């Protein structure tokens, strides 16, 4: 797992120095979501229009009359980033065809949190992807509704404590497993689907570049560490992002035209999930047997993914 070794030496060559999201925004210290945003914007470069959903990234960036966005940007509501993005894409397409705006490619992207993607925004996302708009949809997944106070979503992991899935005496946290949105996107025959994590910046940026090159829909699901919502120290954000990958809890892969490929080194043996769970307050209530159950689930999910990688043929 040495993807980013010698980062200081190579990063300036690999990563755009230009910032597209200005400093001075209001994200918490150690916010992995805003780091994901900063990196994905670097991957995109210029000529982009952003449609953003309500959520942390909207609230920390756009208190009138200030904005952290250097790209053209629109926020309308919580559940409709994909639909607003659809309209932006269609509008730009028509205006360009009719000679009313400059004749060059401008990429539309839509951004939402896991709530705005996997829950309330799923219908709009499905519609937009099915219609085939030339648009990248980014899910910034911090595994709960953070903006409104750490309530569970369908992307909250099994047994994690949130304010609406508390670690109670009778029910120890989230009762369900994480909804697999990338798989739902593959089922839509989205030509490029990927997972990413800001602890692997080069991998993330490369995937964004690939997605940008697609003429049509693309989907990137970015694991976004949230020290505030996960009740952990802000300085371990990057480490947690590595651990989630090294334990196989959130594998890094991409799916090009239905063909799955792991983009991380295939480990000899996955690290035990406890390494990832233990530093986080949201998992503090777990017993050794709980951790064992989670380990079994992670192993099973990993096997399923490996099967896909082996068996799935490109369309």
């Amino acid at each position, binding site marked *: 797992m040495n993807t980013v070794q010698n980062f200081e030496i190579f990063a300036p060559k690999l990563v755009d120095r230009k910032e597209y999201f200005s400093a001075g925004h209001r994200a918490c210290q150690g916010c992995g979501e805003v780091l994901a945003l900063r990196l994905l914007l670097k991957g995109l470069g210029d000529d982009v229009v952003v449609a953003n959903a309500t959520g942390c990234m909207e609230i920390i960036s756009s208190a009138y009359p200030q904005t952290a*966005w250097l790209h*053209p940007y629109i926020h*309308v509501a919580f559940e409709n980033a994909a639909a607003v993005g659809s*309209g932006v894409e*269609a*509008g*730009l397409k028509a205006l360009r065809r009719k000679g009313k*705006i400059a004749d060059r490619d*401008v990429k539309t992207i839509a951004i939402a949190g896991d709530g705005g993607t996997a829950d309330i925004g799923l219908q*709009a996302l499905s519609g937009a992807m099915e219609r085939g708009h030339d648009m990248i949809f980014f899910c910034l997944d911090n595994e709960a509704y953070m903006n409104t106070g750490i309530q569970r979503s369908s992307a909250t992991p099994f047994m994690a404590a949130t304010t609406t899935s508390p670690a109670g005496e009778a029910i120890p946290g989230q009762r369900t497993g994480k909804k697999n949105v990338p798989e739902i996107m593959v089922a839509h025959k989205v030509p490029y689907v990927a997972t990413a994590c800001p602890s692997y910046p080069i991998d993330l940026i490369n995937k964004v570049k690939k997605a940008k090159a697609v003429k049509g829909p693309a989907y990137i699901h970015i694991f976004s560490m949230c020290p505030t919502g996960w009740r952990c120290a802000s300085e371990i954000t990057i480490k947690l992002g590595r651990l989630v990958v090294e334990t196989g809890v959130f594998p890094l892969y991409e799916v090009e035209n239905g063909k799955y490929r792991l983009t991380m080194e295939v480990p000899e043996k996955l690290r035990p999930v406890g390494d990832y769970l233990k530093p986080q307050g949201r998992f503090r209530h777990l017993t050794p047997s709980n951790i064992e159950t989670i380990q079994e689930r992670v192993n099973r999910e990993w096997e399923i993914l490996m099967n896909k990688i082996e068996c799935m043929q490109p369309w």
Partner: protein
Amino acid sequence: MGKRIGMEVGIAAAEAVALCNIDVAAVYPITPQSHIAEHMADIIHDGRIDAEFITVESEHSSISACAGASATGARVYTATSSQGLMLMHEILPIVSAMRLPVVMGNANRAVSGPLNIWNDHGDIMPQRDSGWICLFTENGQEVIDLSIMAFKIAEDPEVMLPTVVNIDGFQLTHMIEPLEFPTQAQVNKFLPDRKPYATLHPDNPMTMGCFNMPDIFTETMKAKDTALWNSKKTIVKVFNEWGRQFGRKYNVVETYKAKDAETLILTMGSMGETASIAVDEMRKAGRKVGLVKLRLWRPFPVEELRAAIKGCKTLIVMDRAISFGGAGGPVATEIKSFLFHDKGRPRIVDFLMGLGGRDVTVGDFIAMVERAKNKKDETYEYYGVRE
């Protein structure tokens, strides 16, 4: 006068919009709007106009897509009805706050439950406070004319507000009427390309949709209210311009035999034509009855209404929507509050009728005028209801 052709009004609405050089349409089908959606698709799929047709998966997405498209500077149209409009409800005030001149046709239909697909105004009234310009049409010709005028009003730099054209479901959308269309050249002259104030484009990056803290939210709300009130000037200007160019003059409040009337019936939408026949019959019988029709619902044409009802003793308001457990139908309630301080104001009688597609006939209007004579108080009353 140009050539008249027979056409279903819903289809005519789509044909009128097709003359407006739209860039994007995002429409989700619902009875009785479906023919507008279907015909819009025909027009675009046949390549008759150069526009993107977004086959959204819901009305929430159609209005959201319209917002996104309008923000790029595109001319944008959508149409809906009833449940579809209710589903859009959340987004409507955002579109007006962002000053996006989306134009919408709404085929008025009752709102569930119970499910009922027929005509009343129960769908548009809950959108009253969304900050949209809200127009009503009485016949097919008005649907054509106002659908075109709506773009000019909405996009005017003094206005920049979304506009909804109400078309009574079935009673109007499914009627085949003799209609006159302006030519493409005439519409091009009347309605030039949209000149957006701000757009989403990398050449001039812009942040749209910032949130407001308490220190500025009230100011933003007042600005929107002021913009909506100010739009009336432009609405009247555009109506006049249309009158000059096409010979059909529109007013924000229309009247029929109202001048010397002691009793006035007030309607919105397609009921106006039936009511005018009732007025003719009552006039023949020597009754001083007239008719007032509200074409504009938002911004409310209060001065024009005052002028139209001056001197009348009884104003009978026909409300086709209900405010359950409230002061009455939304139209009468509104008028009562505007006229509250007016000395010598008419007695206001409020009938809730014509709900969920129930016909309101000439005989019904005459019966309501009779009933109003004997009604002592100003509380609302259901007309023609089986007890």
